[in-house]
């Protein structure tokens, strides 16, 4: 559309630009603004940023929400918990997903398309219902416990549901495909000749993997880790349905602050902090990506 008239271009551009500005950019600024407000029992339940009294207009910046966030141990615990849980989930997904992606990339051509479909397919069915399915599987009288009892591995049903174990299981289950897909994409393009050359030069399979395959698949590893870590960090449904009261995750804390406590400024401050963390992860990803591209 190189020769489209300026007016035609403007028409194409204006609609999506205006939509995103109004419903995506402005909302983020509003969240930032409200994080500097004070909670009120009113509708809406926060103080305005620009207040006016007898002296005229003045800016009313409150740091209460931020002070609470910095001072209360509950939030520190939730942050550390979320980061630790998301990092562990990412590591487990990488360990499980790498051999899966490798086997897919090495499968016969025709079967690769089928395997790819098999990995993507669960993604098209409801996330909520797939998490719910684990509630049934992990229950006290669920199939998993029944199987363990029947095999004589345990004497009494194990408490599996509403434990940290169940949260990890749910997270790995939900985000494993996000790790497998980018890994498959890079491994599938890997030049077979390089591995053969390594073998010809006397490298054992383990050494060839460390020297050739692993470094060449780093872009896929980085992409997969970001795709798992970021949503796992903000996850809310899985800790709520599968976790117990001791599983503190930041997404859940934000949700409770907003809905249960009606503490809008605190929820907004949590959102801003979460956004900063996600932004930092993406900046690191870009820096790593640039370095990998140079090599």
């Amino acid at each position, binding site marked *: 559309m190189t020769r489209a008239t300026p007016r035609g271009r403007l028409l194409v551009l204006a609609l999506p630009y205006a939509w995103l500005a109004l419903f995506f950019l402005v909302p983020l600024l509003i969240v930032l603004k409200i994080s500097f407000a004070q909670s009120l029992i009113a509708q809406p339940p926060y103080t305005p940023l620009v207040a006016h009294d007898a002296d005229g207009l003045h800016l009313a910046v409150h740091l209460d929400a931020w002070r609470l966030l910095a001072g209360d141990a509950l939030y520190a615990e939730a942050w550390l918990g979320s980061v630790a849980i998301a990092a562990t989930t990412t590591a487990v997904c990488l360990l499980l997903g790498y051999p899966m992606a490798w086997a897919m990339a090495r499968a016969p051509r025709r079967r690769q398309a089928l395997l790819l479909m098999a990995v993507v397919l669960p993604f098209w*069915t409801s996330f909520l219902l797939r998490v719910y399915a684990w509630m049934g599987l992990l229950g006290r009288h669920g199939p998993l416990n029944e199987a363990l009892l029947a095999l004589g591995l345990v004497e009494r049903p194990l408490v599996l549901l509403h434990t940290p174990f169940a949260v990890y299981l749910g997270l790995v*289950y939900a985000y494993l495909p996000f790790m497998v897909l980018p890994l498959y994409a890079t491994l599938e393009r890997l030049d077979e000749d390089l591995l053969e050359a390594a073998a010809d030069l006397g490298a054992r399979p383990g050494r060839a993997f460390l020297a050739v395959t692993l470094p060449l698949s780093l872009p896929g590893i980085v992409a997969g880790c970001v795709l798992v870590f970021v949503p796992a960090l*903000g996850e809310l449904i899985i800790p709520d349905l599968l976790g117990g009261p001791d599983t503190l995750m930041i997404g859940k804390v934000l949700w409770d602050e907003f809905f249960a406590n009606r503490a809008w400024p605190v929820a907004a401050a949590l959102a801003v902090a979460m*956004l900063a963390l996600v932004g930092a992860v993406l900046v690191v990803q870009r820096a790593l990506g640039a370095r990998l591209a140079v090599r």
Partner: protein
Amino acid sequence: MKRAGRFARGMLGAGLAFLYLPIAALIVYSFNASQAVGVWSGFSTRWYGALLDDEQILAAAWLSLRVAALNASLAALLGTLAAIALVRFGAFRGRALFAALTTAPLVMPEVILGLSALLTFVALEGLIGWPAGRGATTIVIAHVTFCMAYVAVIVQSRLAGQDPALEEAALDLGATPAVAFLRVTLPLIAPAVAAGWLLAFTLSLDDLVVASFVSGPGASTLPMVIYSKVRLGLSPEINALATLLVAAVALTLAISAWLMLRGSARGNGPD
């Protein structure tokens, strides 16, 4: 191509089993006669009957379908326009911001999308009186905002693979830019737009977090109703619902795969 070792193939099999086990369990237990999910006590279809009598679930499903369809159509339109601007317009003022705005919703945690949209609706209502209250309209707006990003990504990759010379030839032959787009480019990117529509529809139908923030009284989507039931414990009715949804997804994918195969067999499209 050398095949992967036994370990990797074993992991792939185990991983796929892990991905499908819960879905299989949902389906099996939807035909369980017992009220207690997990304890098998004979085959029955009573929960499907109970589901069809559940007014709350049916109303929520109808609302969700309407929201998803409207959202997908708006997201397909806006996402396609965004993709055209990003791929074909070269450099323009504000391009960097625009590119960032179209991709950022993809990596934005849902809680932030939901919270920021709700706070905006509240502020807008206080400022200009619109949107009056919250419900289906506000859910659609919030869904379109993140779904158009997915459409833009899909259409962008298809557009980037198209030869601009085709459109230029149409322009040389005297077509106006609009006609050249509608007659040449649009048919070529149509599969990507359709795929984007389908993805936007699915994302909207599946969304719980964003909808919970921006919905109002009386407008509960299907995931919101499922969530409120599931929090109280297991319910065989939800298993029956899950089975129907899985069947619908499988049918949709089978039909689209068949359409794509037929399309490529007839030689439509360059790939």
